């Protein structure tokens, strides 16, 4: 039997496009890849080897292989993107993994602000780009490296580092 409602305990593969959507409100593969490409300027081919899954209310997972759907396992790959809300939100782990290829909506913090961001604090960097969720990065060992997700609103950058990932360095 085909379920038409999302079961939060089960990993279901995302439909490729809206035409194939059965479960109400579920994001499609095209939308999910399109979001990352639009938001961060990534090459669409970045995700050619990945399948995308929903488990939990709107939690989308990126998996570098494929198995039958629904998947009878606890987890597939990494949590990637939060959907089913007005503004989709990338995860810290996805920004760390895929954010290196980003060409826009990346704010690069100086050393002191990067440490404050990692502590979970709000900072006030120079930024005249979009508001919303940004990839937050800093310079380390000769290159720019993403740290996590920041919410830029009303002229300030609110750290979205999960509590368990915050550090005092």
């Amino acid at each position, binding site marked *: 039997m085909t379920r038409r409602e999302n079961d939060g305990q089960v990993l279901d593969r995302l439909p490729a496009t809206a035409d194939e959507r059965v479960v109400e409100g579920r994001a499609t593969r095209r939308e999910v890849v399109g979001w990352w490409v639009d938001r961060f300027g990534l090459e669409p081919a970045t995700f050619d*080897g*990945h399948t995308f899954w929903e488990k939990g209310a709107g939690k989308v997972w*990126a*998996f*570098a*292989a494929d*198995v*039958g759907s629904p*998947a*009878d*396992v*606890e*987890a*597939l*790959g*990494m*949590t990637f993107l939060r959907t089913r809300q007005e503004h989709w939100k990338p*995860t810290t*782990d996805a920004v*760390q*993994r895929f954010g290196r290829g980003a060409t826009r909506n990346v704010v690069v913090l100086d050393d002191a602000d990067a440490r404050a961001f*990692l502590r979970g604090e709000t900072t006030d960097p120079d930024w005249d780009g979009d508001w919303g969720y940004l990839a937050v990065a800093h310079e*380390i*060992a*000769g*290159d720019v*490296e993403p*740290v996590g997700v920041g919410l830029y609103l009303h002229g300030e950058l609110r750290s979205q580092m999960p509590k*368990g*990932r915050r*550090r*005092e*360095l």
Partner: protein
Amino acid sequence: MDPLARYEPLVDDAEAFRAACERPLPSVVRVNGIKATPDRVARAFEAAGVGFEPVGWHDGLFRLADDVSPGNTWPFVHGWVYGQEEVSAVPARVLDPAPGERVLDPCAAPGSKTTQLAALMDDEGLLVANDSNLGRLSALRSNAERCGVTNVAVANTDARHLSLKPFDGEPFDRALVDVPCSCEGTVRKNPDALEEWSLSHVEGIAGVQRAILARAVEVTRPGGTVVYSTCTFAPEENEAVLDGVVADHDCRLVEFDVELEHVPGVTEWDGERYDPSVRRAKRIYPHHNDTGGFFCAKLEVGA
């Protein structure tokens, strides 16, 4: 009870063995190839004034200075490094998985070897990480995510009865069977490891180990590779387990190289005799390379 005394007849230098077991272990990190290179990690540690030195036999392992807490460094935050005991980096290299393969890690949590396998696979192919303990699986998931691993399917079943059904019914190319054990070889890290030691525990867990290894052999394709490892010295949990599985499963022990000093598996213990091929397994004692103790064997599944 002094469990280590049991093994003095097996080691070449009982005094050095004993002394090494009493020394604390240095803190070691492994560079995560999915996100970083040894050079970049070295540059970041140098810039932050973190003391470290390469281990010599493996480019991607750094011993840290005594005052360093690896979790509180930028390379850790970025998932560039994983705190892992030096000798426990051996079995994934012996398994040597390639990108695109199907690989099983039946006793995976908390994930040091799983993340190493994913890196050796360039995060491509299917890596099934199973563990019977749901709490430890949550640690595995957060470790894998921090390391940027996306090719892992996390399962919560009893490894003795692992089913291929969730994985399209297809067998694996390789399996890394790093079983729960009495952990005698981790005494340098956990001095308590020997306090609860008992022969009945060793004998009980050996039955579990044998069933897990047997199941891994069954779900690996003909010609595929299975690596068996423990962090313990007890032959009951090592050579005896191999002896039992090669006797009633279509698989054989094969030769392999490791860069660390080691001695061959033992063929006699406590009145028992094992299949002579268990000599192809390797015992790494703490005094050999100033590491924890370890046991590792490589099997080829019958073609």
